């Protein structure tokens, strides 16, 4: 009798066990974040030789797009006060594509651009001469937050990548995804960049408002 009873209870319904295991597995699959190596690439300038004075670069003021960010995270863009960095990418695009006073080479470059980019050339005398001369300068204080600096740097890169992408008929995202591994994508990369050096200069921060 006792034997019979114990036999009846040995069978536990285990059909749903696998489902539970599955659920757990999916839960962990979804929640784990695998560290990714994505980011914004920046090439720092080479180290200055203390014995050699820094080169005196003569560049016209109109060829430099000045962005100053102070310790209160206020922006001064080309002498104009701004609260947020919004819309900065469009301004940088306009500045780079201004073609105020192109030389022969730059004129040839201008003629090779698609019409949508040519339409952006406003030819204002107070803005950049041509893309080869244009420099975007970002200057911060020591007290500026890294987050805002990265946002501004991101927008400057965005402006350039949109120009590159538009030249080869891609969106900025597609252009950035090009690896340069095979010939075709390498060609696209080079065609996009040609004549448009990615000139984003990061100035040494001021000693104000930080430690």
């Amino acid at each position, binding site marked *: 009798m006792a034997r019979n009873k114990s036999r009846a209870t040995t069978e536990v319904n285990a059909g749903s066990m696998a489902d539970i295991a599955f659920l757990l597995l999916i839960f962990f699959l979804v929640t784990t974040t695998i560290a990714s190596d994505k*980011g914004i690439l920046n090439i720092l300038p080479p180290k200055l030789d203390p014995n050699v004075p820094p080169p005196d670069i003569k560049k016209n003021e109109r060829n430099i797009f000045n962005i100053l960010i102070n310790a209160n995270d206020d922006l001064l863009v080309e002498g104009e006060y701004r609260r947020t960095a919004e819309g900065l990418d469009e301004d940088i695009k306009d500045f780079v594509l201004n073609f105020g006073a192109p030389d022969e080479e730059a004129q040839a470059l201008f003629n090779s651009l698609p019409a949508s980019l040519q339409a952006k050339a406003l030819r204002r005398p107070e803005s950049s001469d041509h893309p080869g001369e244009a420099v975007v300068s970002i200057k911060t204080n020591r007290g500026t937050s890294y987050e805002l600096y990265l946002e501004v740097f*991101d927008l400057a890169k965005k402006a350039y990548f949109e120009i590159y992408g538009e030249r080869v008929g891609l969106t900025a995202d597609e252009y*950035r995804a090009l690896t340069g591994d095979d010939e075709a994508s390498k060609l696209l990369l080079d065609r996009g960049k040609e004549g448009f050096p990615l000139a984003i200069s990061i100035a040494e921060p001021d000693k104000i408002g930080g430690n």
Partner: protein
Amino acid sequence: MAKFKKKTNTSTSIPTSALPDIIFMLLFFFMVTTVLREQDLLVEQKIPQASQLQKLQKKTLISYLYIGKPKNTSLYGSEPRVQANDVLISPPEIVQWVNQERDLLPESDRGFITISMKVDKDVKMGPISDVQTELRNADARRVLYASTGKVMN
């Protein structure tokens, strides 16, 4: 012959009710043993967002620097610190660290070493520029500002 026949009569099915348990055991084993991050983070890390992300082709070329407020403020203070590998270092030690990291790479790749800077949102530009100055001194000029994707409107 008769002996063999008798044996075939016994039930041949293997009890499968324990299979889920085995799967469970495997799941737990992997849950416990997998380590996603090899290092303990000693500093706070809230990675900022950006839209123009690039992915690097060769992961072996990347070395990581973590910058942020120390988690253990009673031991390390509340000022942002730099973590390399498992220890907090001061900016002047970065040159030595870069050289160590560079020595680990094959000789042909040493010029392409990339420093991925994982910086907390709340850090100011002061410590960042100190680190960048040291990286320039160490001639490790490829820097990746680690950031997560942002949905642009």
